[in-house]
């Protein structure tokens, strides 16, 4: 399909990417810093043949998404950290009823009401399930406006393929910044005539010509819930095997590998470029899927190489850090640099940290 260049904020790109990716149901509740997203949906979803609802609360919104997914629609909601906390019950039900739905979290500072500055402090909540029960969401972390747009179609595709909630984990900076991006069409209305409901045999459509379908996450008979959970775990194993995604830079000769995702990865990349210009052997791993975490790439590294160190950088006080440590499995030192509550590690701070790390690791002459 012919592509067109447009200028958009990350929030708008996510909304447009969702509509182009087949999203035909959106319910949400306003919260900063993702308000451009809900406004874009309000303007463009109806002309695309979809349903837009400004819900009375995040609870209502996520349950409307649960329902629209149960009825076979590609459905999504979006919010920012405190609002995502409110949605956790619904996300647990979506996982428990094995429904495909997409949830966008444009993270801000916490805990509590926190503030509206960008943060990455909801990593645990997104990657560990977040609500009650043994479940996982597929988590995708875009680091540019273009990638935010592109990952939306993938999120819906993965959600449908695995009948599982998928989360887009961005932050306030990504949501607010404007960048040029290539889109399939600046007119989402071109999809108006398209069938809005993909064929899903399990969906609630009325029992005409078939046995009734029941959408539920409730298993009272002895042993049934355990069996269901084992089936979920089997599904998660397949997702972990097949869906790890990451981006990397200069891994071949790197002596220090930076690990960062989303907005933080862009700043880390700037630091890598500067340090490389200075002759330092620095590499970068940027996880695109946070769950499943791309641990294969770490296993492929020459982690027996005594010279190698890893530096995790986050807009939090160390959440992805746990996954990196698990992946590295004590085969290399893992260092950390992080700020949160609105603080963002700068390129300069990263460079200083790397230089210090290199100094302490250089053999004394």
């Amino acid at each position, binding site marked *: 399909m012919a592509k067109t260049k447009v200028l958009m904020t990350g929030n708008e790109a996510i909304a447009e990417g969702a509509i182009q990716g087949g999203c*035909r*149901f959106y*319910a949400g509740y306003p919260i900063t810093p993702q308000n451009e997203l809900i406004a874009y949906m309000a303007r463009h979803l109806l002309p695309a043949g979809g*349903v837009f*609802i400004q*819900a*009375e*609360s995040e*609870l*209502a*919104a996520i*349950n*409307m*998404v*649960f*329902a*629209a997914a*149960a*009825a*076979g*629609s590609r*459905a999504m909601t979006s919010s920012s950290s405190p609002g995502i906390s409110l949605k956790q*019950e*619904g996300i647990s*039900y979506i996982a428990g*009823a094995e429904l495909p739905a997409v949830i966008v979290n444009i993270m801000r500072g916490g805990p509590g009401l926190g503030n509206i500055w960008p943060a990455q402090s909801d990593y645990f909540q997104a990657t560990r399930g977040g609500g009650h029960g043994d479940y996982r969401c597929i988590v995708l972390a875009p680091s540019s406006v273009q990638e935010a747009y592109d990952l939306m179609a993938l999120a819906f595709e993965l959600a449908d393929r695995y009948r599982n909630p998928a989360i887009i984990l961005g932050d306030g900076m990504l949501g607010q910044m404007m960048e040029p991006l290539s889109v399939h069409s600046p007119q989402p209305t071109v999809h108006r005539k398209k069938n809005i*409901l993909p064929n899903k045999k399990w969906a*609630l*459509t*009325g*029992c*005409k*010509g078939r046995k*009734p*379908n*029941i*959408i*539920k*996450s*409730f298993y*009272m008979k002895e042993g049934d819930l355990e069996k269901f959970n084992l089936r979920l775990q089997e599904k998660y194993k397949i997702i972990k095997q097949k869906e790890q995604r990451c981006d990397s830079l200069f891994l071949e000769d790197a002596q220090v590998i930076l690990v960062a995702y989303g907005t933080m990865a862009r700043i880390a990349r700037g630091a890598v470029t500067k340090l490389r210009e200075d002759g330092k052997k620095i590499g970068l791993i940027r996880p695109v899927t946070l769950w499943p975490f791309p641990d294969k790439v770490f296993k492929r590294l020459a982690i027996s190489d005594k010279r190698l160190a890893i530096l995790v950088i986050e807009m939090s006080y160390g959440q992805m850090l746990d996954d990196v440590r698990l992946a590295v499995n004590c085969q290399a030192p893992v260092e950390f640099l992080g700020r949160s509550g609105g603080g963002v590690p700068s390129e300069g701070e990263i460079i200083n940290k790397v230089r210090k790390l290199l100094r302490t690791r250089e053999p004394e002459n």
Partner: protein
Amino acid sequence: MNKIFSRPKSLRNISTHYCPGCGHGIAHRLIAEIVDELGIRQRVIGIAPVGCAVIAYDYWDFDCCEAAHGRALAVATGIKRVRPQNIVFTYQGDGDLAAIGTNETIHAANRGENLTVVFINNAVYGMTGGQMAPTTLLGQKTATTPRGRSAATEGWPLKISEMLALLPGVKFIERTSLHSVQEVIKTKRAIKQAFQNQVDKIGFSLVEVLSPCPTYLGLSPVEALEWIRKTMIKEFPLGRIK
């Protein structure tokens, strides 16, 4: 010989999990009869609540969806908006509809969603063991009001049907009861109207059904019916509210 009474097609042939004298079985059957009579079994979608009726979908033989506690009308909204050609109803207890789900109830009603609501009011929480409901009467003893509900500390029985009647999006509200055969017949008539309204695209229609819970009223099944007739309908008068 002519068969004059049989199980509705929309009701499965399984034994009940409800207590002796409970009203849910009657209400489930009325809905099944109405779905059959309106010829909508192949396009109806029921939303089961959290509470004693959580497995209502085990009894009804048509498409059904679970809803988290209190969220039935948000779930019904999502399904109906995606599939307006289907007939979508919720079946909710007093705790579900008028305590934890009050916000979803009010806003679905205020949006004038074209939905049918069957609201079972038995003045007590059944599933969790007889705690106070928003509709528990003043003085009524429950597991969490052992000295009887007091207005000073627990407030008054919530008359959500009367509250909803104020909203322009609400087109039909009636309060009925299951305490006698005549009242059961009136209940069926009201619920059928609430379904017919949706078929005719009239808008949000709700029937509040006073229903016996002998187990947690601490009464025999017959006494529970008497209690509704003598006591409960004084607080919750029957008839068309809107």
